[in-house]
């Protein structure tokens, strides 16, 4: 246990020191060159605004975070269900995959504008749909890979045991796909937060972190905007940590899979 703590400390202090030095340098540069606040706010000012407006930042973070979380869950669910369906029916796979790729090639934020038109101006639904779509593709592609790229020896073994396709799915394909799902979630979690922010730039309620950043910059309240950016960073970190923890508690097979791939 103590060795784990010391490893943690060893891993943490170089980036921590670097971070502190970077913030100090930022502060120094702003003061030394007397940069105007509308150009670049000093970290001390940003921190002050962050604590002053903490309730507002927290409220905005809750809005964006909820959108990201709902989209993440819905996208992961749809992605998993769809990859199961596609792996079961190869015909559908050939039919839908090109379509999915084509849809994914559209600059996604164009879709927010379209979706905003479809729902009420104060609705959070378009943003959530947007996050769902982004997460959906990440999960679909990865989990489908996990379901189909199983060891041929495993499949031959299962057939020698007279296993049905459904049993092969349950005993081989799904367990094989679990590490792929967690890899997908690890990528999708930060992506869901970013998507939730950026979706707010296309109109709708001015209540999330993304729209607060935009409106404060528009009002030349640069330091306040930076305080919201700090909130956005923290929210993104929270999502990343959640996905990392999830991955840690996933099956030991997951670990084995990755070590086999010579990570």
């Amino acid at each position, binding site marked *: 246990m103590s060795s784990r703590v010391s490893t943690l400390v060893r891993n943490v202090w170089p980036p921590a020191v670097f971070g502190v030095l970077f913030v100090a340098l930022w502060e120094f540069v702003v003061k030394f060159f007397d940069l105007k606040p509308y150009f670049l706010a000093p970290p001390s000012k940003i921190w002050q605004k962050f604590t002053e407006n903490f309730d507002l930042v927290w409220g905005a973070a809750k809005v964006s975070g909820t959108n990201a979380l709902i989209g993440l869950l819905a996208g992961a669910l749809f992605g998993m269900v769809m990859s199961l369906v596609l792996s079961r029916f190869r015909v559908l796979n050939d039919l839908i995959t090109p379509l999915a790729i084509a849809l994914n090639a559209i600059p996604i934020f164009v879709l927010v504008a379209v979706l905003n038109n479809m729902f009420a101006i104060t609705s959070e639904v378009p943003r959530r749909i947007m996050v769902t779509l982004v997460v959906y593709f990440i999960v679909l592609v990865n989990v489908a890979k996990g379901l189909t790229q199983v060891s041929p*020896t*495993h499949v031959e073994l299962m057939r020698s045991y007279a296993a049905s396709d459904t049993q092969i799915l349950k005993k081989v394909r799904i367990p094989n796909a679990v590490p792929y799902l967690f890899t997908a979630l690890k990528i999708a979690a930060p992506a869901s937060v970013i998507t939730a922010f950026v979706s707010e730039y296309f109109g709708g309620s001015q209540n999330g972190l993304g729209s607060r950043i935009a409106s404060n910059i528009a009002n030349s309240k640069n330091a306040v905007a930076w305080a919201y950016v700090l909130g956005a960073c923290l929210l993104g970190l929270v999502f990343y940590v959640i996905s990392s923890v999830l991955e840690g508690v996933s*099956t030991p097979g997951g*670990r084995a899979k990755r070590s086999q791939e010579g990570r």
Partner: protein
Amino acid sequence: MSAIEIDNISKIFNAGSGNQVVALTDIDLSIASGEFVSLIGPSGCGKSTLLRLIANLLEPTDGNIVVNGKSPKQARLDQDYGMAFQQSGLFEWRTVAKNIELPLELKGWDKAKRHERAMEMLELVKLADFAGHYPWQLSGGMQQRVAIARALAVHPSLLLMDEPFGALDEMTREHMQSELLSICRRTGSSVVFVTHSIPEAVYLSNRVVVMSPRPGRITKIVNVSIEGERSDATRDNDAFFRGITAVREALRGVEMSDHVRGIEDR
């Protein structure tokens, strides 16, 4: 009753198309109950294909196979045989014991009975202490022993093995060969064993079936007559060397390939 009757089978892949491959032709072979038979030959001679036809993982284009007095499909559905491959094929998300339980799980055995049988099998391959380990915590030789234990879990009368020791180092390999023979003595299983190695084939088998490629066919069947129980001492035995010479000469008649050399190669 013979374990396997193979009557004039042939196997053609992609029949009728431009890249048609005749994998096997005119195969006749009868394997007695309790007999250990090796299939040896250069790459492309169809020895693995023949094993998969017996296992009903492939269907023959022509001819007939009888396994345990049934069609290969019925034998597969009844789990009459156990199978092991060059890759141990262990499921990395299952513990060693759970891997061995898998064929029993599919047969619908209850949990307690499954676990009891898995432990019995682990005793047999001397890995009882590793029941709770995951495959990646085991060495290659140990993984292969688990795979053999899994193949034996349903107490099959027949074992089908496709180069199961091909990925192991020489010393582990010889050790595993002796273990396999002692397991077969205890279980009385018949074995069909695909290999590239002449000494391995001779050491293990009652008969060595020598095959040749393009098209895959049986060129010679060498009877190995080694007196008494086989042990490490057998490897210095004259009868062992005579068997090796006989198989090598039968293979020389066959087109040589990189995969089949003399005794110095494993």
